[in-house]
């Protein structure tokens, strides 16, 4: 099963689930906003999405990940709008029978997300100005 959400405002993490009997591994990844971008201090990042296409690409990526790796479930929340330094912008949970497939799936999912999903970052500098982030992961 997959669950995908793109939304504004702080991310409520997925609830703990102790009822799973076939999943020996639960991988949790939280992406957080760093205080610097290319050496410059920032106060926040503002995430911009291509509305509609970003969610469609993220859903397709989650499906591709579940087909490529023997995992059971993949849940993902991506925040858009202003995200202050230290706050979570991306929350991903993967459940799998064993740890290695979950770790591999998590790594691939995040690498592909940074190539395919049309979401961008604007850096909010200390003087309040807003510029496109130069950070990319091609």
């Amino acid at each position, binding site marked *: 099963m997959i669950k995908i959400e793109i939304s504004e405002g702080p991310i409520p993490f997925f609830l703990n689930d102790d009822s799973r009997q076939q999943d020996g591994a639960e991988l949790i990844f939280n992406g957080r906003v760093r205080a610097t971008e290319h050496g410059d201090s920032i106060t926040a990042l503002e995430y*911009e999405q291509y509305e509609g296409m970003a969610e469609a690409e993220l859903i397709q990526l989650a499906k591709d990940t579940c087909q490529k790796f023997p995992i059971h479930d993949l849940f993902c929340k991506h925040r858009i709008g202003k995200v202050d330094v230290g706050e979570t912008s991306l929350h991903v949970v993967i459940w799998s029978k064993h740890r290695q497939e979950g770790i591999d799936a998590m790594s691939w999912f995040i690498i592909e997300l*940074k190539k*395919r999903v049309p979401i961008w970052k604007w850096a909010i500098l200390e003087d309040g100005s807003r*510029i496109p982030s130069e950070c990319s992961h*091609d």
Partner: protein
Amino acid sequence: MKIKIKCFSQVKYAFGKDELKMELEAGTSTSELEKMIRAKAKGKLDDISLRVAVNQKYLPNEIELKDGDEVAFIPPVQGG
């Protein structure tokens, strides 16, 4: 024909707009439109690689655009 161009990140920064509307000759291709957009940006997009999406789908190859298409020239994405 009328085309809507969605602008994001560096493309939005170059034009100062979320969206451009253009009137094009029938049969204009995506690569021809990309050349027009780069010229219109007056150098601001010269060092930026752009992928093209039409009607919210990435295109592997160029196509001829149709009246009413929504086009986005997508700079390197940065989610996460």
